[in-house]
Structure formats: structure tokens, C-alpha cells
């Protein structure tokens, strides 16, 4: 290396633990998040594995009922609050958002680091609750069970989730302000990559929804400690009020989980079809549409809860309306594929898998939103299958797509392509084997959160468990080959995919300041070459 070497990459800019734990570089913070959420994912996955092993037999032989209940509670809490919600935003978003808009960092780097610490502290609280007594409320904390009857460690858990909520709020805040104030010159709103629009919409939900969850959890904790009676019918409280508050956050939260993945799709599909996106505006606005209408459908989780039927109807109608922006996105991607030049690198395989599974998951959401059908399938495995299709088949696949796509940018190395494709295919197959039988189980009437079940449901449960073990392999493979690629992977170069976008115009891995000179944007987004216009 010559002495006139330009700025060192962010990975070389400082060594030692302190240079990581005290960093304010969004790229390093993203890696801190990456390591932590992968840890949480496998913790959650171990619980999933235990759930599936237990359900191999109708009597639920593996563990006692109470233990099983703590399993699915921890599984749900960890997967949702400590893995999926921070996954794409805090890892990939954190890493590429400033790069994509041509900024040196997020607007509030210290707050960014702080939010990681908050995340870890929240995680420690929740895990320690799991260790000391466990929690058995389900991730939904329904009152009055959680507030009075549960004998488990609810308060500690609730504190953990409360804390981690602030991490989410701060990340969202940071993204919103950064997108508004720090775009490079020439980077107008309609030149932003669609991933940024998706992150913006996600942040909107984080910022406006999460505080309500915080309040709700505070009230549950207070109720448990002081017996306030707000959710306790025997003191005149209304348990349904809890459900309103909870779902006011937690329904929009499912869009926190999916919107970033939808954003990743717009990047990968265009890159691997090498074609300009079809319907940029429609996709951009559909993200905002989902975020806004998504706030008005929370009552679809409560159709049979005893809420007013009239309100139920309103929520049902709005749930159908919120499906339309998702439909718009799917069709726009199809139109982008049309006439493209499609390559099947790993991110693209994950992306195509995503589209398929998201479609199935989303369409089954329509069954649930149809009030008459929801009466039957509510709180059965049909719901479990629905949300795993969207969250595991959809969001996690989207995360994998994004991780592989930006991996060369993050590490400067390419992952081994063959292994990548293999893992993507195994995941897809294992996934369907795991969760498709659950649709049937659900319609047959197997309720969720059951530690044992009538014998006639066994065959389908065994299939599902078998699928889970394949799926498990599908998830373990990437860990191995991605780690391997850190040292042995091919050196990537700044733009291995020949993609457009500012993040590819800087070295991989990028220098701490991201760009050598402040970039100026002159092109429309996704200006891939076509037959006609020769773009050089």
C-alpha cells in the first residue's frame, strides 16, 4: 500500500474493543446490531426448535405446560422485539441509509449508539426475566392474565420491552431527521432509492406507534404492582382497552417488520433484473400508504374479543384497503421483471422467494380480515401460519436478501455464491414444509399456544416439525459461509453487482466518512442501461 492511500476503511479505522463500543460511526453501529440480532435470532430459534419438538406428540411430552408457555412467549418476544423489528432498519438501514443519500453519517450519531445500548439493556432485562421465573403471557400480554393472574416474571419482561421500545423510537427519529436534512445535493425526494422511502415509512410507525406500547406496558406493570384496576374487570376496568392500546402499536409494528423488506425488494429486483423500476411513484407512495392506513386497522385482531361489531366492520374494511398498496408493490415488481435481464444470484433467489411467500402470507391475511372467516380461524394455527409466512417467509427472507446484497459493501468480500443459492433454496423448501401444514391445522381448528392437542392433528404437526429442521439448516448455512467469507471470500470491489445508487460509488468497505468528496446526484434512480438509451 502506498503512502498516498486515501482514508482507511471504516473497519480499519481504529482497533480494539473500545473503538467498537464507543464508535459513533453508523456503519460500525450497524455491525454491533448485526451481531446482536443474530444472537437473538438463534436464541429465538432455539425456542422455536423446542416448540416444534414438543409438538411432535399429541401429549406434548417434552416439557410441562408451564414451560411450554414460557417457550412460545420468549420465542415471540425475542423474534419480534429483538430480532425482526431491529433487523433490517437497525442493521441494513443503519449501514446504507447515509450511504444511499450521500451523507457522512446519521444526523445524531451519539443517539444512534445510545439506541444500541438501550437495545442491549432491554434485551438483558427480557432474558433475565426468562431466566428468573420465565414469562408465560404470550407476546401479546393480554390482561387481566398478565396483570393479575400470571405467576411469572411479567414486570421484568415488560420493563425490558419498554426499554427496547426507546431504542426503536430513537432509530426511527434518527432516520426521519437524516432523510429530511442530510440528503446530498441533487438527491431530491423522487431520486431517493425506494429502500429509503420504505425506511422512512417504517420510521414513521416507530416514532408514532412505539410510545403507545410504552404507555401500555407501563400501565400493565403499574397494574401488577399497585392493582390500579385499569384493566381489571373486578375493579371496574376494561380488558379490551388494553387490547386497543396494544394493537394500536402492534399492528403497525407488523408493518415495521415488513416495510423494510419490501424496500429491499425494490433494490434487489432492479439490480438483478438490471432494469429501471416500474412505477417508482406508486411504490414510494404505497409505502407511506401502508404506514398511514396501517395505523387504522388494529381492531382486526379483536373481531371476536367483544369489541363493538360496528367498529369491527370499520377495521375490517380498512384492513382490506391496506392490502391494496401491498398488491401495488407486488405487481410493480412483476412489471419490472418483465423485459429485464434477470440473473439469479443469491439475493435475487431470496427476493423471488420473498415475493411468493409474501403473496401467500398476505393473501391469507385477507381470510383473517374477512370477519366471518376470522371467527373460525382466529387464534388457531391458521394465524400462526399467516404470520410466519409473512414474517419468516417474507421479512426474514427480505433480510437475507438484503444482507447478501450488501454483504460485499459491508465487508468488502463476496460470499460463496453456490452455498448462498443452496441455502436460499433449502430455506424456501423447508419453510413451506414447516408452515403450510399449519394452515390446514388451523382450519381444522387447532388453537395456538396449545402444549398438547387431539391425536388426529399429529401427522400435520410432525410434518411441520420435520420442515423446521430443514429450515434450521437453511439458517445455519449462511452463518457458516458468511463467517468464512470474512477472511476467505473474494475481494468484492466497490460495485460487484454493477448496481446504481450512491452506496456503490464508494469503496467497499467504505471509509469512515463514507465518501471521499460530497457526492452530487445527477441521475434518476435505477438508471440501468436499456436497448435504447446508451447510458454511460
Amino acid at each position, binding site marked *: 500500500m502506498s503512502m498516498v492511500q486515501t482514508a482507511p476503511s471504516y473497519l480499519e479505522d481504529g482497533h480494539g474493543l473500545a473503538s467498537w463500543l464507543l464508535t459513533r460511526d453508523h456503519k460500525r453501529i450497524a455491525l454491533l446490531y448485526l451481531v446482536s440480532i443474530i444472537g437473538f435470532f438463534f436464541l429465538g430459534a432455539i425456542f422455536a426448535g423446542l416448540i416444534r419438538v414438543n409438538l411432535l406428540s399429541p401429549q406434548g411430552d417434552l416439557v410441562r405446560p408451564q414451560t411450554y408457555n414460557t417457550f412460545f412467549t420468549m420465542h415471540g418476544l425475542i423474534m419480534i422485539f429483538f430480532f425482526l423489528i431491529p433487523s433490517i432498519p437497525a442493521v441494513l438501514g443503519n449501514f446504507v441509509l447515509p450511504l444511499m443519500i450521500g451523507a457522512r453519517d446519521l444526523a445524531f450519531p451519539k443517539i444512534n449508539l445510545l439506541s444500541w445500548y438501550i437495545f442491549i439493556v432491554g434485551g438483558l432485562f427480557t432474558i433475565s426475566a426468562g431466566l428468573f421465573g420465565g414469562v408465560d403471557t404470550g407476546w401479546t400480554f393480554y390482561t387481566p392474565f398478565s396483570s393479575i393472574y400470571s405467576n411469572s416474571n411479567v414486570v421484568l419482561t415488560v420493563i425490558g420491552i419498554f426499554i427496547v421500545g426507546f431504542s426503536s423510537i430513537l432509530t426511527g*427519529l434518527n432516520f426521519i431527521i437524516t432523510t429530511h436534512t442530510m440528503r446530498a445535493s441533487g438527491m431530491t425526494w423522487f431520486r431517493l432509492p425506494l429502500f429509503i422511502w420504505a425506511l422512512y415509512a417504517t420510521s414513521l410507525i416507530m416514532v408514532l406507534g412505539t*410510545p*403507545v406500547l410504552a*404507555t401500555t406496558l*407501563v400501565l400493565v406493570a403499574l397494574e401488577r404492582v399497585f392493582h*390500579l384496576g385499569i384493566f381489571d374487570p373486578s375493579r*371496574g376496568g376494561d380488558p379490551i382497552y388494553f387490547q386497543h392500546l396494544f394493537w394500536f402499536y402492534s399492528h403497525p409494528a407488523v408493518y415495521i417488520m415488513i416495510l423494510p423488506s419490501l424496500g429491499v425488494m425494490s433494490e434487489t429486483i432492479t439490480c438483478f433484473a438490471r432494469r429501471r423500476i416500474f412505477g417508482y411513484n406508486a411504490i414510494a407512495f404505497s409505502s407511506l400508504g401502508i404506514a398511514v392506513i396501517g395505523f387504522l386497522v388494529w381492531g382486526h385482531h379483536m373481531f371476536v374479543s367483544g369489541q363493538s361489531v360496528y367498529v369491527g366492520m370499520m377495521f375490517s374494511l380498512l384492513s382490506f384497503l391496506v392490502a391494496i398498496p401491498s398488491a401495488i408493490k407486488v405487481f410493480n415488481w412483476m412489471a419490472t421483471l418483465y423485459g429485464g435481464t434477470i440473473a439469479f444470484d443469491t439475493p435475487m433467489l431470496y427476493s423471488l422467494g420473498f415475493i411468493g411467500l409474501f403473496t401467500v402470507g398476505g393473501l391469507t391475511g385477507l381470510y383473517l380480515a374477512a370477519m366471518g372467516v376470522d371467527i373460525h380461524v382466529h387464534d388457531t394455527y391458521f394465524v400462526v401460519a399467516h404470520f410466519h409466512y409473512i414474517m419468516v417467509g417474507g421479512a426474514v427472507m427480505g433480510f437475507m436478501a438484503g444482507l447478501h446484497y450488501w454483504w460485499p459493501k459491508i465487508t468488502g468480500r463476496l460470499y460463496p455464491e453456490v452455498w448462498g443459492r443452496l441455502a436460499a433454496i433449502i430455506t424456501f423448501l423447508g419453510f413451506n414444509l414447516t408452515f403450510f401444514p399449519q394452515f390446514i391445522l388451523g382450519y381444522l381448528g387447532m388453537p395456538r399456544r396449545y402444549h398438547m392437542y387431539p391425536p388426529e392433528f399429529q401427522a400435520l404437526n410432525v410434518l411441520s416439525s420435520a420442515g423446521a429442521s430443514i429450515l434450521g439448516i437453511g439458517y445455519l448455512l449462511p452463518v457458516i459461509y458468511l463467517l468464512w467469507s470474512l477472511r476467505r471470500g473474494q475481494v468484492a470491489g466497490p460495485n460487484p453487482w454493477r448496481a446504481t445508487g450512491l452506496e456503490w460509488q464508494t469503496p467497499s468497505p467504505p471509509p469512515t*466518512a463514507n465518501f471521499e468528496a*460530497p457526492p452530487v446526484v445527477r441521475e434518476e434512480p435505477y438508471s440501468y442501461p436499456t436497448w435504447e438509451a446508451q447510458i454511460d
Partner: protein
Amino acid sequence: MTESIAGLEHQFETLEQQHEAGWLGMWAFLATEIMFFGGMFTGYVIYRWAYFGAFAAGSKDLEIWAGTLNTLVLICSSFTMVLAVHAAETGERRGQIGFLLATMFLGTVFLGVKGYEWTTLFRDHHVPGIGFHFSGPYQNTAQIFFSFYFALTGMHALHMVVGVGLLTFLLVKAWRAEFTPAHHAAVDIIGLYWHFVDIVWIFLFPLLYLVDRHR
């Protein structure tokens, strides 16, 4: 990188951009705060509808002079806060210190009065969960009102405590004469927070103290 402009953080190009980000950041944060209190306000609304009698009775049990006094105290503290901002804009260091101290003082008075109210309520067994007792026809529904009273005022008081902490931080900076007419974003932004906490109280006052007073 250009560290030439005093106080410019590395990620920004200009001070202007930096201030704008800070200002917008605080406003966005205040939007989250609205929602944070919002969950409880929603509960307040529906329970007040369902238990109007109990809310009226509970409300009458609060000391109106304390509520009114506290409202006035907070309004004055907002006034002194905005004067501190003014002093920062004009670069008067003594003004900054004086008004910040005044704001902190008023904030503390508020908390003192609140503490007094809480102890009286505690003495009267009006604290939910701790041997709650309420005589009269609403004996078994009044607790709901006090639950909201304590949840809302408690959360508000917590914000006040945080606010006083932030003011201390400003005070130190003002003492060191770090604020110049060109660079005093911190005062501006923390001022916003303080005013917001004041606004929350402006709503809490009629909602908690003035339910059906006239009867």
C-alpha cells in the same frame, strides 16, 4: 474534514443544517411524547365516560388551589424559560443563568406542591393499591379515577424531573458562557421540551381537577 467551524459536528456540512436537524429532532420527539401521554389520555376519555360519577367525585377530592397554583407556577416557568432562550439569542450570560435558575426553581416548586398533594392523598387512603378507601356512593369505582390521576401526574412529574436535569446541564453550559447568539441550539431545543411538559399540564389541570366542580 473541516472542523473549522466551532461546534459543528462532523456529520453536518453547515451549522444551519445542524440546528435544523436538532430542532426537527426535538419536534419529532415531542410528537412521540404526545402519543406516549396519548395512550393514557385515551383511557381517561373512555373511563370518564363510563364512570362519570366516580370521576366527578374523585376530582372534587383533589385540592383545587394546588392544581391552580401549579398551573400558574408552570406557566411562569415557561415564561422564564422563554426569557432564558431570549437571553441566549442576545448573548446575555447573566440573563441566561438567572432565568434558567428561575425556571428550575419554579419546576421544583411544582414538584413540591405535587409531592404535598400526593402525601395528602396518601394520608386519606386515596392511593390505589395501598389500602385504598373512598367513602360515599362511589366507594368501589373511585379507584379508577385515582389510578388515572396517579398514572398521569406521575408520568408528568417524571418528565419534570428529567426537565430539571436538562436545565442543570444548560446551566453549566451557560455558566461557562458557551452560548453565543450564533450557537445556542441546546437552549432552544431543551426549551421546547420544557414548554411541552407545560402543555401536558395545561390539559391535565382541567381534566383532573375540574370534572364537574360546580355540583
